[in-house]
């Protein structure tokens, strides 16, 4: 009991410590790695995944998963890019992109809440359906975005980037939604135990549905940042992003069994960890193919830790 307790505390700090050590390690080899410039560069680069992970975090705290987020990003950006090309304004197309994200999220919500399909399988299905849809829209072409768009993607005041700021704002908002509103409390309650939540008379179905909608919208915002950074919408957009998001969330100490974790710190910690590893390896000019492996291992360790923490209660999900 007591041992478990100390173990848990240790696990809580495991990844922050890991992150610090790794960063220091890179810094030793390449002092400029910890230069402000590079740090903010990383914060810039991780903005898209951080935003998407925020939505994922909300879903995971509910004890569910949404692996269609990357595809949602693709579809909504595909739509807005084609609109832009056919002469729509920047604002209108972006708004529409957001709506598309919400709609696709709602589709997930419908399948899960009304058709009562297990979220994993449901979003596995939509992940591929949406990816197909997105590529169908863009014809899988590289759609170049107007310069203004790209300028926005890399717009910065000094070394602080625009999207980093927005990302932080969104993070804080969702964090507040989770910690400070009825909605958030219901989300946590569902993550604890869905049936109990129903027995107490909480609006379970509605909450699940809207969580998926929110996740969808955040996904399209993440997609927006990603394509703004590159200045184009490509069929690569959001590929495998959903898995990274799960990893980010897990590393951020948000339990896959639901109910536990802080969105703000979790997502920041998680996405920073992966960004540091990636850009660090890149910095050292290490074999780039090595990254995916490291990523996988990190995910596995994080999950193992999570499994220990929650005492193997694999009943959820």
């Amino acid at each position, binding site marked *: 009991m007591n041992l478990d307790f100390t173990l848990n505390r240790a696990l809580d700090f495991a990844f922050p410590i890991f992150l610090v050590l790794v960063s220091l390690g890179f810094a030793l080899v390449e002092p400029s790695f910890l230069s402000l410039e590079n740090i903010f560069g990383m914060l810039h680069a991780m903005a898209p995944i951080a935003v998407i992970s925020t939505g994922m975090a909300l879903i995971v705290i509910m004890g569910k998963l949404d692996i269609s987020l990357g595809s949602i990003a693709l579809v909504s950006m595909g739509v807005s890019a084609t609109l832009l090309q056919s002469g729509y304004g920047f604002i209108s197309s972006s708004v529409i992109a957001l709506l598309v994200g919400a709609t696709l999220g709602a589709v997930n919500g419908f399948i899960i809440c009304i058709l009562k399909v297990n979220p994993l399988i449901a979003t596995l299905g939509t992940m591929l359906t949406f990816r197909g849809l997105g590529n169908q829209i863009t014809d899988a072409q590289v759609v170049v975005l107007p310069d203004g768009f790209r300028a926005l993607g890399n717009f910065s005041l000094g070394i602080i980037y625009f999207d980093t700021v927005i990302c932080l704002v969104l993070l804080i908002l969702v964090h*507040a939604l989770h910690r*400070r*509103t*009825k909605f958030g*409390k219901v989300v*946590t*309650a569902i*993550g*604890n*135990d869905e049936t*109990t*939540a129903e*027995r*107490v*008379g*909480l609006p379970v179905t509605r909450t699940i549905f809207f969580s998926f909608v929110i996740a969808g919208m955040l996904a399209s915002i993440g997609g927006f940042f990603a394509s703004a950074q590159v200045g184009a919408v490509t069929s690569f957009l959001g590929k495998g992003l959903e898995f990274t998001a799960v990893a980010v969330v897990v590393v951020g100490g948000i339990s896959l069994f639901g*109910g*536990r974790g802080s969105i703000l710190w979790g997502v920041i910690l998680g996405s920073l960890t992966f960004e540091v590893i990636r850009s660090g390896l890149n910095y050292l000019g290490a074999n780039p193919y090595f990254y995916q492996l490291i990523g996988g291992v990190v995910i596995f360790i994080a999950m193992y830790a999570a499994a220990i923490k929650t005492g193997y209660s694999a009943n959820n999900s």
Partner: protein
Amino acid sequence: MNKNILQMQNIKKTYGPINALSNASILLKKGSVVALVGANGAGKSTLMNILGGITTPDDGEVLVNNKKVNFNSPVDAARYGIQFVHQELSIFKTMTVAENIFINQFPTQFGIISKQVIEATTRQLLAELGSNLNPHHYVESLSTGDCQMVVIARAMLGNPKILILDEPTSSLSKYEKEKLNLVIGRLKDAGVAIIYITHFISEIFEVCDSVTVMRNGTTISSQAIHETDNSKIIELMLGDVASIEKKRRKERNKNIFLKVDKLQNENKVKEATFELNKGEILGIWGLLGSGRTELVRSIIGLDGQPKGTILINNHGKLTPISAEYLSGITAYVSEDRRGEGVLLPMSVLKNTALPNLQKVSGNFGMIMLNKARNLATRVIKSLSIKVSNFDQKVGTLSGGNQQKIVFGKWLETEPYLLILDEPTRGLDISAKGEILKIATDLANNGVSILFISSELEELMKISDRYLILSERHVVAELPGDSTQDSLISALSKTVQGSAA
């Protein structure tokens, strides 16, 4: 003080063939505590579910403050100031005390929950209940008693006129019980009327003003507490068993088969010691929550590793064995038939084969279909199970036949020990009879049986000896010929004992 706040009159409720409530009534005065007791299956919970708005009655009327009401949902009930504290506590482990209390009624300003407000209210609420829990402690770090406190506090938030406590003490420590009693006292003073469901008769005398006893869906007595006592209540609960003809011949060989010595399993079973003879039916007699099921599950190692020793008769000398080994020669008929007994969506054939796969398979673990079929046919015949063929899905069978399948599949393993946990629950009279018959026949063929039942009648019909359980202790052992009174008094004595 003696204003009727609630009257439920000749309520009826049937679920399909079984009628759960035939004529149930209860009366509740403002600021009073009424104990609602009865063996399980007596209909207490059904009655309370009706009051809580979880189910609706087929007939009869419910009056709150002498006005007729009918609830269609817990929300309706709450509107009339009725709060239900279920036995299994609806708590959310990863949330704080305050959050748990406010879970379904957070006060917000512009949609934002103010921590200060809810924590202040929580402190005050808990203070009223005489608890000093910290509002921002996480519930997972609390004891069951404190969780109970949280749930009661949640109920208090909807300032109830009527509070239903379902088995509030079933998993509380002695100290926690005393705390709870204090709380109940305070609530009374605050004018809240309480319905107190329990199996621990002793508690009734600590907190209740009157007792309402139910049996087979009927209210058979409502008395002020001072007009009655333990044995009276228990007698009423169990009903007087008319002339019981023992199903078995008296004289038994005292050839010991199993000895359990100081078996301890966390707080589930405490220092259980008993012996079981070959071909004997040992009736385990105790009220719900006395640790009957936990005891039998522990000896076959279903709930973790028990401490203490289990010895088995090996050619005349007792040799210690592991719980696993014992489970290897034991047939366990669980009280949860649908959850642990049968595979509902699967065929009779596969269900009967399940524990006998070794037996019905040949080389390379290939299933010998003919063997499996024969086995199924044997089972169906020997227990005269009503099925069209052995490919029929067990889910489509009647409860009795499902239970027979459970028996059948186990008998095929030729067990030495048979554990029956409420084997007749939810079965009709004839099925009950058959099940008991099977049990006795087995015993006559030398199988030793541990038999748990809440129905004293059937227990007395076939038991050769009784083991009295109370508060998770084996408190006494009675001979097979002991009378109903002696059994009941044994129980009430121990209850008294543990209460003191």
